[in-house]
């Protein structure tokens, strides 16, 4: 038991720590590279030197404006949203003890989508900055539902939880479609937002949710040791002195804050929360004190890569990042299925 | 269940085993250099066995020695990684599943009981190999089911849900299913492991009776060496997936075998009731000094 808590046996400490640190550094470097590419690539490729000039220097040309005006906010939002989703996925998987849990599979994204569509229809709001709070509320509602499930979960069959989330998603999507069909304007307005995208958002959308996002991250980091204990099973965790119900509640709140913020800003982006922990676990192990920070890097890495891909794949037009992640995430889920189930 | 002779009492003896070798369909299961794997792990290796037809065979051994795996290999549930399993000379994996099901019935280790299924409905499923795609339920099918219920003493229970029965009754219902299948071979995977003493003996007595009446060949995996010695004509002892010994209990079960296979110091004495070998572990002082010696 102490091995899981400490994470490293006495003899391996130096080499393990070294490995972890170097992995983190590699991850950070990859992220920086990704961010740079995000600034440089797109319908119109901007050479890296111009990017640097635009950011740190004085360039005012068209290219520079594209960088500072469009791509910089987009990249920053991508970093924030990716981080939020990645960590939300890690925490969700920990509190439900289910490798398939994530904001997507638990229906949280769908909840946000529904709330936004209703807002567009009933209250005639029409810009992402205005949707923000509705998205947040919708995500929270669906998350509460999933949270209630998780609380009774204990050892709920992971398949059942995943199916339940999907069924919840189906209800919400059906209602969402119904509302969109009632009114052409709603349809026009909503269908783009529902695809999940980083474009067309300026930083003004991010600031309002930033405090909640940061709070969610802090809670997740603080919970990491307790999440390790939770992985052993409710009974064992309780025996170790971990207040299981309270930890689950706190974890649930963190997921709501993180996923809600992410969806509020970028719309429902699929699978990042599912993929990030699975990417990090083979490299850093299941210790949440490493896993959560790892997802903090892996999430944005995945999201920005998907975004860049979306910009390149049908140049000069763009594919929304939510659609790219859905296409990439579905085979991932299928592969996970082969791994999780004999 | 009174009146059933102990199969291995001293007077019954060797004639039972050798006598049946002369019958026409011998129902003899043999393995040749059988390897059984789960994934990459070799569980049973290079096993050459000949299980006598028309006899009761017990497969014993320590945990994880491959007993249940062997049984699954013998019943076609697990395909051999190497070697073969033959029934009267025919490779069972070349037979169709249905053909084998008409000859061999299986009671699995922890049978999965569908929710609220009645005993009769369960036993009826045993007729599946006999039914063709569009055939309706025939009188012969009903007769087989009734006979199976009668033989296992579960006729009064026929409308009871199986999952509400006691452990012993449930096992009998599952044995009735295998009986309704009307096979000459019966394979049982740890039929007594989760039962209390009374029900363990009930099940074993039933199995012995089924063998005695119709000469059925029985192969069962057992944990308890004493029970195995009492009820089996032939014993197969496995260790680490290999054959440690095979033969009549009286011939092979001795202290040396128990020491080498189970790592327990013991004394083997004749059972006061039946005369079959009974394993009595030595006192713990003796066993621990033997271990450190």
């Amino acid at each position, binding site marked *: 038991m102490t091995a899981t808590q400490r994470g490293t046996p006495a003899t391996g400490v130096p080499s393990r720590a070294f490995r972890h640190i170097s992995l983190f550094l590699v991850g950070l470097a990859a992220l920086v590279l990704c961010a740079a590419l995000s600034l440089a690539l797109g319908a119109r490729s901007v050479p890296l030197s111009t990017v640097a000039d635009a950011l740190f220097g004085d360039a005012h040309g068209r290219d520079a404006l594209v960088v500072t005006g469009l791509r910089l906010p987009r990249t920053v939002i991508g970093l924030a949203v990716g981080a939020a989703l990645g960590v939300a996925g890690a925490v969700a998987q920990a509190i439900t003890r289910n490798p398939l849990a994530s904001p997507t599979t638990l229906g949280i994204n769908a909840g946000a989508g529904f709330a936004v569509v209703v807002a567009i229809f009933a209250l005639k709001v029409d810009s992402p900055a205005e949707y923000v709070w509705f998205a947040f509320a919708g995500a929270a509602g669906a998350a509460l539902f999933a949270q209630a499930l998780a609380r009774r979960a204990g050892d709920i069959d992971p398949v059942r939880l995943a199916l339940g989330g999907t069924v919840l998603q189906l209800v919400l999507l059906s209602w969402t479609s119904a509302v969109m069909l009632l009114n052409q304007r709603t349809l026009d307005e909503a269908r783009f937002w529902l695809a999940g995208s980083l474009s067309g958002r300026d930083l003004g959308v991010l600031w309002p949710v930033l405090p909640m996002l940061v709070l969610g991250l802090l809670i997740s980091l603080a919970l990491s040791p307790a999440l390790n204990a939770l992985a052993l099973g409710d009974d064992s965790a309780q025996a170790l002195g971990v207040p299981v119900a309270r930890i689950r509640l706190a974890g649930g709140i963190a997921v709501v804050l993180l996923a809600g913020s992410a969806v509020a800003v970028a719309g429902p982006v699929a699978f990042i929360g599912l993929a990030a922990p699975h990417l990090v676990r083979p490299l850093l192990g299941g210790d949440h004190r490493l896993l959560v920070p790892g997802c903090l890097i892996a999430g944005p890495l995945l999201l920005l890569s998907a975004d860049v891909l979306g910009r390149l794949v049908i140049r000069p037009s763009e594919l929304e990042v939510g659609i790219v992640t859905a296409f990439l995430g579905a085979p991932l889920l299928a592969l996970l299925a082969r791994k999780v189930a004999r | 269940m009174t009146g059933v002779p102990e199969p291995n009492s001293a007077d019954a003896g060797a004639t039972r085993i050798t006598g049946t070798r002369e019958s026409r369909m011998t129902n003899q299961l043999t393995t040749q250099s059988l390897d059984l794997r789960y994934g990459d792990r070799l569980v049973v290796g290079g096993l050459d066995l000949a299980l006598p037809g028309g006899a009761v065979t017990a497969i014993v051994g320590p945990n994880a020695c491959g007993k249940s795996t062997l049984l699954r290999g013998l019943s076609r549930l697990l395909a051999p990684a190497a070697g073969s399993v033959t029934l009267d000379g025919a490779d069972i994996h070349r037979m169709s599943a249905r053909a*084998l099901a008409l000859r061999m019935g299986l009671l699995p280790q922890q049978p999965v009981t569908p929710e609220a299924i009645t005993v009769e409905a369960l036993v009826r499923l045993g007729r599946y190999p006999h039914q063709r795609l569009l055939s309706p339920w025939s009188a012969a099918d009903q007769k087989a089911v009734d006979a199976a219920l009668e033989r296992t003493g579960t006729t009064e229970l026929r409308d009871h849900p199986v999952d509400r029965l006691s452990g012993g009754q449930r096992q009998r219902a599952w044995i009735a299913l295998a009986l309704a299948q009307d096979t000459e071979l019966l394979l049982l995977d740890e039929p007594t492991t989760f039962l209390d003493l009374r029900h363990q003996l009930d099940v074993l007595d039933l199995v012995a009776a089924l063998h005695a009446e119709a000469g059925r060949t029985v192969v069962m995996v057992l944990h308890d060496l004493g029970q195995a010695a009492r009820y089996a004509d032939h014993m197969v002892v496995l260790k680490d997936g290999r054959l440690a010994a095979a033969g009549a209990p009286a011939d092979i079960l001795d202290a040396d075998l128990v020491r080498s296979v189970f790592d327990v110091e013991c004394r083997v004495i004749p059972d006061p009731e039946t005369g079959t070998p009974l394993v009595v572990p030595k006192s713990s002082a003796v066993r621990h000094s033997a271990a450190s010696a």
Partner: protein
Amino acid sequence: MKSAVVAARRRILVFSGVGLLALFVLLTVSLTTGEMSMPATTALRALVGLGDAGDVLVVQQFRAPRSVAAIVAGAGLGAAGCVLQRLFRNPLASPDVMGVTGGASLGAVAVIAAGASQTLIPLGALGGGLLAALLLGAFAWRSGLAVTRMVLTGLAVQAGLAAAVNLMIVRFPAELAGSALQWTTGSVYGRTWTQVWGAGGAMVLALAVALVLHRRLAVLDLGDDSAGALGLNTSAARLQLLFVAVALASLAAALAGPVTFVALAVPHIVRFLTGPPTAASLALASLTGAVLLLASDLVVQHLLPVEGLPVGAVTATLGAPWLLVLMFRQSSPVQRSHA
């Protein structure tokens, strides 16, 4: 205990009787109500071609095909859900979570995207549903078809196909996006007799096959070991049953679009009212599905204050309480295979 068995059988008979009666009543109601409402006798006579030409037109060309379509699709969905839930031993299994519904949507939307004639849409839905099943089979097969893997792979297939549909909805010009969206939620509006006969005939065939294979479900329920020992090739049987269920759901989708929740909820309703699965379960599920979908369609047409909602939205709404009940119930899954 004999009385329990007798009581169960009686329940089944009562349930079937009530179901058939309800079906007849609802069908009559569907023929009589609408913009031109008419008394029941007139409607029934018009159905067979007697009476006022205008009445006959309305009943025969508009109302009857729509209602029969709902009945046929509902029957297929109920049966599909019944087979899938037993096959997967999971109360949440249904074509909706396995990609079949998503595939049907995709097929329909692809036809719209290609600008092809509207009459080809049902074929597109059918093809899409079958494609989803193929993907599922291909990904989930690894020396056999294990239950958990099938369910999870189904989720993945559903997600991927839904993404593809979403892509098209986003890429389409606004006018097409609306009709594409329509086809992602299920509707029986405007069905013609050709469509109904076509899908209906195939459905009858599929139901017959399902009834023949139904016995295997009972054997599979015993667990892989016992089923294997009884001579059933478990993987082959699973594949066959899966295929039949997919065919049923795809045909239903071809007729009514991807209607959600009927396949999920119907087996639970049947179980709730008549007890654990029996030989009659499949037929009962078909009957219940037909009644449910027809009733939902009537609600959509006549009871809702809003015009033009697809029936899929209603079924989803009706399905939500079931969802809540299912997800909060603490019982373990129907069976678990033991190691």
